[in-house]
């Protein structure tokens, strides 16, 4: 390669040729634009010459674009995957919270259902906020205290049955001794009408999850699967609260008495929401039910009552019409002067 400076001297012929070419091309543009100049054959030949190379380069270009798009998509997918993972984590957390709320909602609904059904009790709903559980002690702490009307020795229940009683009421919390506490004793009786045997349910330190119903005479009518309810004796627990059912019966060592092992109706391991009975009264009488009807002659009591009411109304209307007619006749005969008349 040389770094010499070029020295060119254009000749007159070349300049003229250049000018001619320029003018020709200049004119070509205008002729071509107005459609007066057609180069179809030239164009076809040029296209044929360039087309194979264009095809090859276009193929390479499309491959490159494909690779670029794939890389972009992979990058996008990676980013999307990351975002989706974050979203999954968030949704899992939300799902957990929602499940917790659903569970709490179900428990509170059950408790509310019990509250509405047990009209003889004034209940204060409470949540379990603490728990002390050992073989010698079963105590929970609830978030209601004297400020909410809770006092010592009030019965604590769930919709499933008896939980225990308030052993120490604070201002805004209270300790509840559970039914399964070895120190606890509840006056109970067998719910079955033929039996009605009374006994005392005590916590068993040897078997904390299954309290015992003691002081049952050996010859009394107690069977496995008998339901045990509170007797109301002693004044702490209202009568009729479900304690559990007898699952086993054993003889006491002395030989005169026996005891029943009770499966409590309340699962004390899953205790979260309870209700404190702050006041109790006699249960209202059951609504009167219509007597059983002879098969084949059943009538709807509500329909009968409606028909009766309609018949009474018709009689009243007829009486009114008779009275009106009599009144009119008396007026026509002149025995009665119309109100406001001369």
């Amino acid at each position: 390669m040389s770094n010499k400076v070029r020295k060119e001297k254009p000749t007159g012929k070349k300049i003229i040729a250049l000018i001619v070419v320029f003018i020709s091309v200049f004119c070509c543009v205008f002729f071509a634009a107005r459609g007066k100049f057609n180069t179809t054959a030239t164009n076809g030949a040029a296209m044929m010459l360039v087309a194979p190379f264009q095809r090859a380069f276009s193929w390479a270009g499309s491959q490159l674009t494909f690779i670029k798009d794939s890389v972009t998509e992979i990058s996008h997918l990676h980013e999307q995957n990351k975002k989706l993972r974050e979203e999954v984590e968030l949704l899992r957390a939300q799902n957990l919270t929602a499940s917790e709320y659903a569970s709490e909602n179900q428990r509170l609904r059950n408790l509310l259902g019990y509250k509405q059904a047990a009209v003889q009790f004034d209940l204060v709903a409470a949540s379990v906020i603490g728990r002390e559980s050992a073989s010698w002690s079963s105590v929970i702490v609830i978030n209601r205290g004297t400020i909410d009307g809770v006092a010592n020795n009030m019965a604590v229940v769930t919709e499933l049955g008896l939980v225990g009683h308030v052993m120490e009421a604070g201002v805004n919390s209270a300790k509840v001794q559970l039914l399964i506490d070895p120190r606890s004793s509840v006056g109970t009786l067998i719910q079955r009408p033929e039996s009605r045997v009374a006994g005392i349910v005590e916590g068993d330190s040897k078997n904390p999850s299954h309290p015992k119903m003691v002081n049952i005479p050996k010859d009394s009518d107690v069977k496995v699967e008998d339901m045990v309810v509170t007797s109301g004796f002693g004044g702490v627990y209202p009568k009729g609260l479900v304690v559990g059912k007898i699952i086993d019966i054993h003889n006491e060592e002395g030989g005169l008495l026996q005891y029943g092992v009770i499966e409590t109706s309340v699962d004390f391991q899953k205790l979260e929401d309870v209700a404190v009975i702050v006041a109790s009264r006699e249960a209202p009488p059951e609504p009167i039910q219509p007597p059983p009807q002879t098969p084949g002659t059943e009538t709807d009591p509500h329909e009968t009552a409606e028909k009766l009411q309609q018949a009474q109304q018709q009689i009243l209307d007829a009486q009114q019409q008779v009275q009106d007619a009599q009144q009119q006749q008396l007026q026509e005969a002149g025995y009665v002067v119309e109100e406001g008349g001369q």
Partner: protein
Amino acid sequence: MRIIGLWAMVLVLLYALQTSLLTFINFDGFSANLMLLLTVSVAFLRGHEKGAFFGFMAGLLQDATTGSYFGLATFSYMTIGLIFGKFSVNLFRDQSLLPVISSIPALVIHFAITIAFLFLLGWQIDLIRFLKFDFWPTAIMQVVLAYPVHRLVLSLNELSKRR
């Protein structure tokens, strides 16, 4: 004869590249103009006569294949080959930076000629929009590709001289 065939082959290959692969990299429909870069480089290295001739051939190829108005690119490249070839009289030919820098004024002249023709043919051109969205993206691509194209032309030129 072989040398002429080699130059023609390079011209056709670069044109095919310009109209196929490079169209994948475009801004608002405008992509790099390799024919313009080729013409500028040839003009710098071979003088205004060869520059104008090469511009003529490159423009003719473009007009015959993808040109909208036959002769427009031919006129434009020929003019650019002539103008930039004139500069080569007083310049050192192996200055590789020169074609890179020249790619911008070459593009300006090319667009100016094209716009002038379009204006004469009755087109309305929005110059501000054109400068803002079309000129600068194309100019950047021209600057990027000017050096490799010039190196290619330089190699061909050396080969031509040896033969």
